């Protein structure tokens, strides 16, 4: 019996050549997969190699705490904080645009839209993420900034003159007292004093947005926000669709309306997915290069403090734009300025990597398993 089985096993054995061929193919394919690790290693090595040389010349503490970034003019100074704050301004601006809109779109697509609407709307939204960023940058610089910069009332911009009439978007009675930028509100100690002054001069304030520069953070951050809407909406929508129907049915059974189900059942159950989509979208905003380089300009500065809105009307420089600026500069050779690019790249890489890992951890840790 056992003899029989042995010969059977032998005849079932593949010829040695076939076995070796299979092994060859498996190794080739595993090599392809291992190449991705080589890419990561390459990124880390190339960034840290340049960054180490840079930190040999400029101390790492000075780099991380310096408030002046001027690598190309006069005595170079390498403080990364202005660049980080510029990035932060863009991220905050784009978050204001993208997070609510993306979440709203996700809830609509997952809970309200009928399948035919969703089949059209979801790919249409995803096109937004595929538009080349250089076109977004061009749009922000050439089209969006002049629109935002047009003197209010807005109707001159929105309603073409050939229609022959104008609809006031901002009714004239509203323009009496909306101090958008009250010429620099002083810090807290004089606060009460300011308020009294403030009430006195109210009548002189009109609805003014300080005029935008040709390069400004506002149009750049709005455009970045538009670009990352689909990241938020797609990933959040996936998370909401994964919430089992039994939860919804139970809520309906208790007499809930669709509003109740969406806000108190689906959104809480999908929180981990929503938060991770937020983090991923913001990490994309941090790494975005062309929009901010083209539309936000290249003048690094520390943020204006109490007068926060002015940060958006002025030009800023973000980390990615600083890299582009250094690369585009003529014949730097192996100077500290050239190496500083690697240090910024490393900062950027660590920042986005940390955010991606956080997003993944949030998704895993707080995922409700059904």
């Amino acid at each position, binding site marked *: 019996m056992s003899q029989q089985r042995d010969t059977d096993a032998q005849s079932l054995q593949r010829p040695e050549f076939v076995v070796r*061929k299979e092994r060859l193919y498996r190794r080739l394919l595993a090599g392809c997969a291992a190449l991705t690790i080589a890419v990561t290693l390459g990124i880390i090595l190339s960034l840290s190699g340049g960054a180490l040389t840079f930190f040999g010349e400029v101390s790492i503490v000075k780099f991380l705490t310096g408030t002046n970034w001027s690598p190309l003019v006069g005595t170079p100074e390498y403080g990364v904080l202005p660049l980080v704050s510029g990035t932060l301004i863009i991220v905050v601006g784009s978050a204001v645009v993208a997070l609510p809109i993306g979440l709203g779109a996700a809830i609509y697509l997952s809970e309200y839209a009928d399948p035919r609407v969703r089949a059209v709307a979801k790919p249409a939204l995803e096109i937004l993420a595929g538009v080349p960023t250089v076109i977004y940058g061009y749009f922000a610089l050439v089209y969006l900034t002049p629109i935002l910069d047009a003197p209010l009332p807005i109707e001159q911009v929105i309603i073409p003159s050939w229609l022959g009439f104008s609809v006031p978007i901002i009714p004239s009675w509203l323009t009496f007292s909306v101090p958008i930028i009250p010429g620099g509100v002083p810090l807290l100690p004089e606060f009460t004093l300011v308020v009294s002054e403030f009430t006195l001069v109210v009548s002189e304030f009109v609805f003014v947005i300080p005029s935008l520069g040709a390069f400004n953070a506002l149009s750049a951050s709005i455009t970045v926000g538009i670009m990352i809407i689909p990241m938020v909406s797609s990933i959040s929508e996936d998370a909401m669709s994964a919430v089992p129907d039994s939860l919804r049915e139970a809520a309906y059974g208790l007499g809930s309306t669709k509003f109740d189900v969406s806000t108190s059942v689906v959104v809480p159950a999908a929180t981990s997915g929503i938060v991770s989509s937020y983090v991923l979208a913001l990490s994309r905003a941090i790494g975005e290069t062309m929009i901010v380089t083209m539309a936000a300009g290249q003048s690094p500065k520390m943020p204006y403090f109490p007068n926060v809105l002015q940060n958006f009307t002025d030009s800023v420089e973000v980390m990615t734009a600083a890299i582009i600026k250094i690369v585009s500069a003529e014949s730097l050779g192996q100077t500290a300025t050239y190496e500083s690019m690697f240090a910024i790249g490393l900062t950027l890489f660590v920042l986005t990597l940390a955010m991606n890992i956080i997003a993944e951890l949030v998704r895993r840790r707080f995922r409700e398993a059904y």
Partner: protein
Amino acid sequence: MATKPETGESIRRERRFSLKEIKGKAFEGILVAATLVGIAALLVLFGYMFFDAVRPLTASAEWYLLFFATLVAPTSAFALYSRRHPAVRRMNARAFAAVFGGLAISLAAWVVFSATGPHGLLLYVLLASISPLAVAGYGKYVERSMFVGPAMVVVTLVVLLWTLGSEVLVFALFDLVGLLFGWIPVLGSLRPPVAPSILVTAVSTGGPTLAVLLYLLRRDSSRRSFAFVPVVAALSGLGTAGFDFWLQPTVDLLPDWVAYLGLVCLPVAAVVAVVVARRAAVRQGLTAGGAVIAGNLAVGVIALALSVDPSFWVVLFSGAVVPVGYVVGDAVVANRKGRVGLLGPFVLIGGVLFGALLEDVINATGPDTWITPTLLLSTWNGIEPTQAGAYAEIVGSIMIVSVMALMSFPVGVGAAIYLEEYAPETGPAGRFANFIEINIANLAGVPSVVYGILGLALFNNFLDFPPGIVISAGATLGLLILPIVIVSAQEAIRSVPDSLRRGSYGMGASRWQTLRNVVLPEAVPGILTGTILALGRAIGETAPLIVIAVPVRTSTPSGLFDSGAAVPLRIFASAANAIPAYRKGVLAALAVVLLALMLTMNAVAIVLRNRYQTDGN
């Protein structure tokens, strides 16, 4: 029974004015608005650029009338007709794919080949194809031909590497010998007794031959396998020595159009022959392939007789006329259902031509658009906006995208196959695979400018390539899209049902056979969809190209090792131009071209996916 509708009524009446109802409606309204904001932003973006690029208000009313009468009306009538007949619609889709796909591919091939010159490329195609063909032929001749698959891959790689590297190796050996023995008085002054070219030939032919001979002797192989020895000798001689001293001069002697015949017509003929042979019989396949070659020769001879350079017409014939002919022939011979659908693209083209003719006759003024032949076919002009074009950038973009696709597609699909089909769940190999998956997810989130720095460090600094050449641009972007390609290929492979795999295993197929014959054919549309989407995204990538110092140039790149050019770089470089004709004219037109390209690629990918999904069900 009678109370039931009443209670329903009362509940509804009660809820009509409830606060909850209003709140729910308001909430829904906000959600719809949020969704619409995104889509509206897209429309505004396209709308502004399109308006400035095309300037639709400058056309006269007659022109619009003509436009609708000759183009919109016939095509929409045809579309409505084909919607109601599924067979017609399918045929229509195939005809569109053949006509416009063929046109696009042959034009892209033409601009790239004419920029780089056909001879060098032909040489590499010959080198890369002769040896696997020889192996395949040998495999047909012997009975046990299991080795053919791996041998073809290995032989191609070895021949290419050996051809490009053997000369370097021989001269490096000379240097080494000189370094080691140069100090000995007599030996140092000795020169090799023969010309270096012959020495290179001898070494590069003898090396592999000897290696194979020794291998066979040691393994005590059958007498039959010694047939390999002359094959290897011939191949390595041809591939290396022949390359420099025989093949290259011969190829360089060929007139341009003959080189194009070899470069375009022969591969197309081979593909047609194989496809027809699979569907019908070998003999018919050979006839079809022969017909393609004969047609090409006829085109060449006619063009020569008219004293026109036949190169372009040969490429156009092979790339566009042959696929259209194949689809038409197929519809006439095999799939007679819905033949009317073939007319679809010709209704469109005929409408355009007829409209253009009538436009001249009745003197209608069309829109004063910026999207003109000049924009696509001439190089940049910084002084005269109406003369400015982006031909060099378009050629550069096509070259970069081709390099990118060639590099990322095989590696990406290979990695996806490993992760989905081979990698175990547990053990060290399982942990390895898990680590790779996490790594890929993280790579997808790395900013593109960081990939640019990688390209800068790897190609410009480490490998010491000249800055911004086509091949380093393509490779950098290839690394950038690698994670996207891998993830989408993984999804496509995962969606192949397990029952198919089990069926294949049950019939005794090995893992690789199952992959090649069952899994991959099922997964190909999905893999292609993901790859096309990734390429469409990478076409507009700018930041990495700036970092690796791709220049903004006005002449076409003359090869893979010449500095590249790309359309998005031109947009970036000129966006700050203050002259309105550039700022809101030429650039808007370029942006529209780039967007149209991206949208077309997306549409192709979506159509492919839908078709695949309906076929799967």
